[in-house]
C-alpha cells in the first residue's frame, strides 16, 4: 500500500494535493482491487507531478492500465485550460499517435483454411521489426503531404477507400499540422519507415469476434459474432520519435523562459499560446497525421494479401474505426458549467466521446465513438463505445490497453519465447516475429489482464463493452 492515497469509490482513488509539493489539483486514478497490486509508486508520483503543471483543470487522472512512463504515467489524462495552460511532449510520449485500427472482413473462422499462408504473406507484405525498410519510395513532397493530410493522402494515392479516412479519429487528418516545424532529421527517419509496423508492443493480428456484449452497438459498428477481423497497432515511427526529441530540447529552454516550476524535467512544457507551445502542437499534429497515413498504408498491404489469398473484394474489408492513444488535442468540454477550450493530453489513453459529440462519424453519432482496446499478445482485445459519463468525468477518455507488469528483462529471464509460441499454438494462435526474444518480451504474462482493465472502465461507465475479439494469428515487430 502506498501511503497518502484516499479511496473515493469502488474503483476510484485520490492522490491528495500535497502528495508532492506544488500540486494545483488532486490526482485521481481508477483501479480495481484485483489490479491494485500492479500499482507502482513511481507511477503515482508521476500522476502527482502532472498536477503541478500550470493551467491543469479538475484532476490529473490515470486509467486502470496506469504504469510508469516518461513524464506522465502511461494511462495518464490531463486537461489544461487553453489560455492559461501548457502543452508537454511528456504528456504525449515519444510515439505520437501510437494507435489502433479495426478492420472487419466477410470471412468466418471456417473460411481460414489457409491461415498459415495468410499470416506468412502478411509478414512478407508488411515490413516489421527493427531495421525494416519501407517499400514506398516517398519524395519530399509526398512526405509533406502525408504529414499535412494524413489518411486522406494515402487514400488519394490509391491506398484505401473513400470511407476509410472518415472512419478515423479527426477523420485521419488532424487540423493544425504544420510540417515546417518538423526537422529534416525527423523527415529522414520518416521516409524509410513509412508503411512499417515497428517493433515492441506493435502488432498486426487476425482475430475473431468471439463475444457480443451489446448487439445494438455491434450492429451499428458492423461487427458480427464469428466474423474474422484484423487489428493493427502502431504509430508515427521514427518521424514521431524525432519530433518528440527535437521539441523536448526547445521546451527545456521554454521552461526557463516562462519561469515554469516543474518537479521533473521530463515534463518540459510551454504555454499553449506561446510560439514554442504552438510549434510543438503543429509538429505533433503533423506526426499524428503521418501515423494515420502509416496505418492506412499497412491496411492497404493487408487488403491486398486478403484479396489474393481469400478471393474477397478490396471494399469487403471495412475499416470500423482508428483511434489514437498518444496525443494532445484541442477540445471543448464543460468545466464548472461553462464550455471551455482545453488541451487534453492522452498518454496511453483513448478518446471515448459519447453520443452526439463532435468528431464522431455520423453513422456512429447516436451510439458514441468506437473505442478499440488491444490486448497483449495471445489475449483478447475489445471494442467498446464512448459514453456521456466519460464526457462528464474524464474529458471523454478511457483506458488504452493492458499495461505492462513485468520488465522486458524479467520477461526474457522468466519466459521462453519458443515455449510461448508452442503454448499459443496449442490454443490455435499462430505467431510470426523476427526473433523468439521479441515473443518473450511481449508474452501474455508480462501484461496486466486486459479483460480486468476493460471491465473496470465498463463498470465505471467511462466506456461500455461491445465486442470481445480473440486472436487467431499474431505478427509481432
Amino acid at each position: 500500500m502506498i501511503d497518502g492515497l484516499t479511496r473515493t469509490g469502488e474503483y476510484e482513488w485520490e492522490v491528495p494535493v500535497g502528495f508532492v509539493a506544488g500540486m494545483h489539483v488532486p490526482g485521481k486514478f481508477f483501479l480495481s482491487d484485483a489490479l491494485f497490486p500492479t500499482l507502482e509508486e513511481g507511477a503515482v508520483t508521476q500522476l502527482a507531478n502532472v498536477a503541478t503543471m500550470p493551467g491543469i483543470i479538475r484532476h490529473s487522472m490515470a486509467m486502470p492500465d496506469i504504469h510508469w512512463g516518461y513524464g506522465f504515467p502511461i494511462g495518464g489524462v490531463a486537461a489544461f485550460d487553453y489560455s492559461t495552460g501548457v502543452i508537454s511532449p511528456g504528456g504525449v510520449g515519444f510515439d505520437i499517435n501510437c494507435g489502433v485500427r479495426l478492420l472487419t472482413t466477410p470471412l468466418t473462422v471456417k473460411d481460414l483454411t489457409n491461415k498459415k499462408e495468410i499470416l506468412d504473406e502478411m509478414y512478407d507484405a508488411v515490413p516489421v521489426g527493427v531495421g525494416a525498410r519501407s517499400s514506398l519510395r516517398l519524395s519530399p513532397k509526398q512526405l509533406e503531404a502525408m504529414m499535412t493530410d494524413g489518411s486522406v493522402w494515402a487514400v488519394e494515392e490509391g491506398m484505401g477507400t473513400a470511407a476509410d479516412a472518415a472512419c478515423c479519429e479527426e477523420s485521419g487528418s488532424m487540423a493544425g499540422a504544420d510540417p515546417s516545424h518538423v526537422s529534416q532529421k525527423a523527415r529522414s527517419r520518416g521516409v524509410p519507415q513509412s508503411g512499417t509496423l515497428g517493433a515492441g508492443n506493435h502488432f498486426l493480428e487476425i482475430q475473431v469476434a468471439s463475444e457480443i456484449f451489446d448487439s445494438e452497438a455491434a450492429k451499428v459498428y458492423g461487427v458480427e459474432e464469428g466474423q474474422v477481423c484484423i487489428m493493427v497497432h502502431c504509430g508515427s515511427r521514427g518521424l514521431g520519435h524525432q519530433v518528440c526529441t527535437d521539441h523536448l530540447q526547445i521546451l527545456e529552454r521554454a521552461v526557463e523562459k516562462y519561469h515554469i516550476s516543474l518537479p521533473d524535467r521530463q515534463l518540459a512544457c510551454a504555454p499553449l499560446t506561446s510560439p514554442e507551445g504552438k510549434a510543438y502542437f503543429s509538429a505533433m499534429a503533423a506526426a499524428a497525421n503521418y501515423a494515420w497515413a502509416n496505418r492506412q498504408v499497412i491496411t492497404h498491404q493487408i487488403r491486398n494479401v486478403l484479396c489474393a489469398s481469400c478471393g474477397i473484394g478490396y471494399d469487403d474489408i471495412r475499416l470500423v474505426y482508428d483511434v489514437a492513444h498518444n496525443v494532445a488535442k484541442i477540445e471543448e468540454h464543460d468545466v464548472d458549467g461553462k464550455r471551455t477550450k482545453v488541451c487534453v493530453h492522452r498518454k496511453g489513453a483513448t478518446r471515448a466521446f459519447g453520443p452526439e459529440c463532435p468528431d464522431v462519424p455520423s453513422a456512429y453519432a447516436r451510439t458514441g465513438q468506437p473505442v478499440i482496446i488491444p490486448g497483449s499478445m495471445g489475449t483478447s482485445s475489445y471494442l467498446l463505445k464512448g459514453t456521456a459519463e466519460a464526457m462528464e468525468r474524464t474529458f471523454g477518455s478511457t483506458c488504452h490497453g493492458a499495461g505492462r507488469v513485468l520488465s522486458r528483462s524479467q520477461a526474457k529471464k522468466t519466459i521462453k519465447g519458443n515455449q510461448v509460441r508452442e503454448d499459443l499454438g496449442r490454443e490455435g494462435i499462430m505467431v510470426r516475429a523476427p526473433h523468439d526474444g521479441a515473443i518473450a518480451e511481449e508474452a501474455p504474462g508480462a501484461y496486466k489482464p486486459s479483460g480486468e482493465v476493460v471491465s473496470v472502465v465498463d463498470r465505471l461507465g467511462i466506456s461500455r463493452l461491445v465486442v470481445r475479439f480473440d486472436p487467431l494469428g499474431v505478427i509481432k515487430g
Partner: protein
Amino acid sequence: MTFEEREHTADILMHVTAPDIPTLFSECGRALMATMYRGKADSDCVHSFTVTGTDNEQLLQAFLSELLWLTETENVVFSDISVSIQKGTLSAVLSGELFNREKHGGGTEVKGISFFGLEITQMNGEYELDVLFDV
C-alpha cells in the same frame, strides 16, 4: 561488459560504469546498440559526428539521440564507438556494418533517450550512471 540492464517496467534501464567520461559515453552507445540489435557487427564503414551540450548529462542525451538517428537513417549497426570531449563539444567516430536481418534482427526498437534519472556520479575512481531508453 560495463553495462547491464536494470529493472524497469515500461522501458529499458541500463546501468553503465567506466573509468572516464569518454569511455562512459561510448559504453552507453554500445548499450544502445545491444538493445536494438542482436549479434555482432563488423567494421565495414566509418561515420563521425559532433554534438554540443551545456553539461555532461545534456551532452550524453544529445550524443545518444544523434547515434539513434544515425543508426536508423544509415541502417548501420555500430560495433566500435570512440568518443572524445573538449570544452562542451563531443566528437564521435563510429564503425559498423549495414543492418542484416538474419544477423542483427530481433532487437528492441528504441524510440528516444530519456532524461529519467540521468545523473553521472563518481565513486571509487569510476564514473557511473543509469540511462533509460524509451521503447
